[in-house]
């Protein structure tokens, strides 16, 4: 009896130990990411400005995502138009289709899906590229040349993300609305004038601002997480070399995606 109590006691302290350790680890990691972000962010504004590198990154993260964002935007809009039409037609309010498509895209789907697509396309490669530079001592080499690796590698990527995310989101929204128009008006016969007029009437600046705030926050989170995972590839337990890079890339994508959805909820509840 007493022994059983003892072993239960051990179980409970064991659990508490685990809980405490994990919490401390998570908080420590969050702190590290926050400092990493602040340092990288501040260095964007250090002189001389790295315009050339930022433009290169804008090209890589933004321009090269153009096609995929357009494609995803188009189909998202089209399916929204399709689904929305059949729902709204039940209530006889298919005239609201334009608003339904536009608002869901601008407030929600635009920023989120853009962020997810960019994570998959650019985020993973940021993590992998910086991770490989870490394991092949290229980051140490920068350090020995007295070139700040944070400024050289991380700052331009954060800056470029801040520029490209809202722009890509805008692109996504516009093409998505056109997709909705395609199915709603051209295929299913909703009146074109009503479609656009309702959008014009109902979408207000607050909706658009909300979408942009989201995409701005996503830009910071995604670029920081992906750079951070790559930058500290060598510190992760259980994975060295190529394996370490692959783990870093995986966690960069997974953590970014999860955070985007979580933050999306939090932001939405504040913005509404």
């Amino acid at each position: 009896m007493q022994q059983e109590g003892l072993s239960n006691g051990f179980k409970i302290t064991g659990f508490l130990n685990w809980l405490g350790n994990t919490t401390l680890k998570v908080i420590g990691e969050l702190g590290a990411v926050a400092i990493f972000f602040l340092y990288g962010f501040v260095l964007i504004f250090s002189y001389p400005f790295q315009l050339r590198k930022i433009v290169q990154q804008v090209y890589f993260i933004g321009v090269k995502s153009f096609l995929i964002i357009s494609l995803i935007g188009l189909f998202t809009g089209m399916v929204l138009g399709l689904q929305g039409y059949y729902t709204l037609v039940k209530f006889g309010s298919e005239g609201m289709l334009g608003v339904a498509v536009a608002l869901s895209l601008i407030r929600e789907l635009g920023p989120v899906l853009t962020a997810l697509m960019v994570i998959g396309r650019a985020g993973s490669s940021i993590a992998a590229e910086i991770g490989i530079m870490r394991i092949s001592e290229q980051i140490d080499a920068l350090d020995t040349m007295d070139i700040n690796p944070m400024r050289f590698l991380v700052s331009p990527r954060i800056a470029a993300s801040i520029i490209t995310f809202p722009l890509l989101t805008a692109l996504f929204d516009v093409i998505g609305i056109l997709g909705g128009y395609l199915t709603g008006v051209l295929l299913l016969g909703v009146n074109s004038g009503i479609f656009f007029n309702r959008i014009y009437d109902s979408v207000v600046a607050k909706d658009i601002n909300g979408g942009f705030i989201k995409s701005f926050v996503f830009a910071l989170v995604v670029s920081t997480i992906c750079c951070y995972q790559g930058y500290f590839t060598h510190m992760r337990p259980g994975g060295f070399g190529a394996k370490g890079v692959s783990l870093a890339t995986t966690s960069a994508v997974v953590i970014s995606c999860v955070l985007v959805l979580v933050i999306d909820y939090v932001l939405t509840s504040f913005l509404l």
Partner: protein
Amino acid sequence: MAKPFIEFKKVSKSFGTLQVLDQVNLRIYAGEITSIIGKSGVGKSVLLKHIIGLLKPDSGQILINGKPLSEFSRAEWRDFKRSLSYMFQNNALFDSLTVFENIALPLVERTSMSQAAIREKVDYRIDQFELHEVRDRYPSQISGGMQKRVALARALVTEPTMILFDEPTTGLDPLRKNAVLNMIAHYQHEIGFTGVMVSHDIPDVFFISNRVAIIENKKIPFQGTPLELEQSDNEIVWQFIHGQEVLQDQLTGLDSRPEVEKLLKTLLSKVEKHEGIFTVALFSIDDLDEIKKGVGYIASQRIFQCLAMTLKNHLIQGEYAARFGSSDVLAVFPGSDKSRAEKVVEELAGECSRQELMDPAKYKKVCIDFSLKVGVVEVSSPIDFTALLTKARENLRVIAKMECKGVLSRK
């Protein structure tokens, strides 16, 4: 002696529970090449990374021009760091930049030089290292030797006052290795930088080093000029400079020289007290150096191995043999008089003549005569160690011979 440029004072460093440096003292002088040698994984690179601040000591101090690194202001540290270059073991070239961009990077990022000036400077280095053909290629598209040259060019382009080389020759073939060492020595003469080189290419690095430090077992048991190194009687030092012979001795089963020297000294002191008698036999292969030059290194080593192994087979417990020079083996017979040694010599002579290495037909291309000699000395009255060796050499007589019979001999 001049003031050292960089001085380690009782520097200790551990990684977790693993201690790598234990109260290490090291001096590096300006304008010289200092080589740090040691086995793999004893902390040579750790030592280098302390100089450039990639690692910080747990305890102890690193002084630069007499001033502790920990007291450097940010500006001073930056100036010091900018006067350094570090050449990484695996080159650490930026693989997404071309050769030109790699070499130009420190100038582009750190200086406000105009593009034209940078291009001129970088092209000068590219010419110097004969890299024009690969100027616009990426590091992964060029050979390992070229990558080394690019790394060296990148290290030199900022005109540093000090360059740290982390195993610059590891993994290169002998020709490229010599080329890299030559390059380092050449530019050191020309530019006069202070070089610190981590390496285990012994003895090659000695030729271009002004100072050598050996790191072993978390400490630095020796530091000094290569000449002092050769004269040192420290056992670890001896093992390093005679690395190849040690390997040979292990292959043949010979005892280590310091061990046998120690034994001889006790035996000699016993004889001085009239407490015993012993005999030594010095076996020598005549013209082993000629064979090395004429026939080849391997042949010479095989002949030596053959002698050593046959000899070792005839020795009984309590008798020792060790290499005393490139072609000599000294056998010690404690407590025995001459007859025991003579018996071994006789057996050995018979066996050696039957070996295939003694067959001139084996040397089809180049053949050089050689002979096996032995000098036996019985020690019953006091004598000192060098006199004993001289006496043994004086007594040398031929016991086996390989003759090329003229036809194929180039000698």
